[in-house]
């Protein structure tokens, strides 16, 4: 892995096709999250007691801290993208690796919380439990997908930087900004009964 490779051409003023592909993908994903939030509040407004009897209120502190950690991981992603645009492959690799570690920690704790919630109440029991686990599960899958994208970027960066790979770095960062924004919306919806 070379420390500094020649700066890729930046003559383009328009975004490459890969960026537009990610933009369309994010639009579809945003629609998916939108339907989940709409479903959550549709159920909420159809029920007097929320969460229903026998289901514990969600914890507040831990999900907020975890979301803060995930949102903070966009800083190394942003810096990694900037380093890649400047042609500094080594710095880009290290920033993305740092982001991957933070996000791995986030996902590990979230999966532990998810399975511990599953031991307390089941998605088959109530509409609340059904949408609660669906919403959180979908979000966690998106985090896992983002980490796979980062692993792919890390692998590609080992071979140096090309314009094509720079597009990959940009779209991966773009995806992470979306996942972070979605994480804020998900945690606020999740904690809504306890706020």
């Amino acid at each position: 892995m070379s420390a500094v490779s020649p700066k890729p051409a930046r003559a383009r003023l328009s975004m490459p096709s890969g960026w537009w592909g990610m933009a369309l993908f994010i639009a579809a994903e945003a629609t998916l999250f939108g339907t989940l939030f709409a479903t959550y509040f549709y159920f909420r407004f159809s029920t007097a007691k929320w969460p229903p009897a026998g289901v514990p209120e969600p914890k507040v502190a831990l999900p907020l801290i975890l979301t803060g950690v995930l949102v903070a991981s966009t800083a190394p992603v942003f810096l990694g993208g900037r380093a890649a645009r400047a042609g500094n492959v080594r710095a880009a690799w290290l920033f993305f690796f740092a982001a991957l570690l933070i996000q791995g920690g986030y996902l590990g704790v979230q999966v532990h919380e998810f399975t511990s919630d599953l031991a307390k109440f089941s998605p088959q029991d109530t509409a609340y439990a059904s949408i609660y686990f669906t919403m959180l599960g979908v979000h966690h899958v998106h985090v896992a997908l983002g980490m796979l994208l980062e692993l792919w970027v890390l692998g590609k960066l080992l071979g140096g930087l090309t314009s094509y790979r720079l597009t990959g770095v940009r779209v991966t960062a773009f995806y992470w900004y979306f996942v972070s924004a979605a994480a804020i919306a998900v945690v606020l919806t999740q904690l809504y009964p306890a706020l």
Partner: protein
Amino acid sequence: MKARRSLELLMWAGIFGAPLAWATQHVFGIGLTLAGCGAGSASWNVPIDSWAAIASIVAAALALGGLAASVLTFRAMRGVEQDSPPPEGRIYFLSICGMVISPIFIAIIAMSGIATVVLTNCRQG
């Protein structure tokens, strides 16, 4: 320059035509349900099926227009590849996206419209 701008407009019409047509049909359907099934508007006797059919036909026509716009854009960009530099590469790539997503939205519009007309109104099942 003017021809390229027209082509870009056609490309955006191809990308957004069908999704916006479905979104309009969907939101109109929500309003129609509220007007036709709400306790406060029971005396209005809103013909839900007729309005749903009209909305579906209009939405399907708009979505087909979006599909046609994408096909025309694609044909105009013959010889360009999706890895070509923007704007040509972008126009070509997004015209393909428009051709892929428009039929999906046309199917959604058709299924929503048919279901509204065929199923019993004002009853959740």
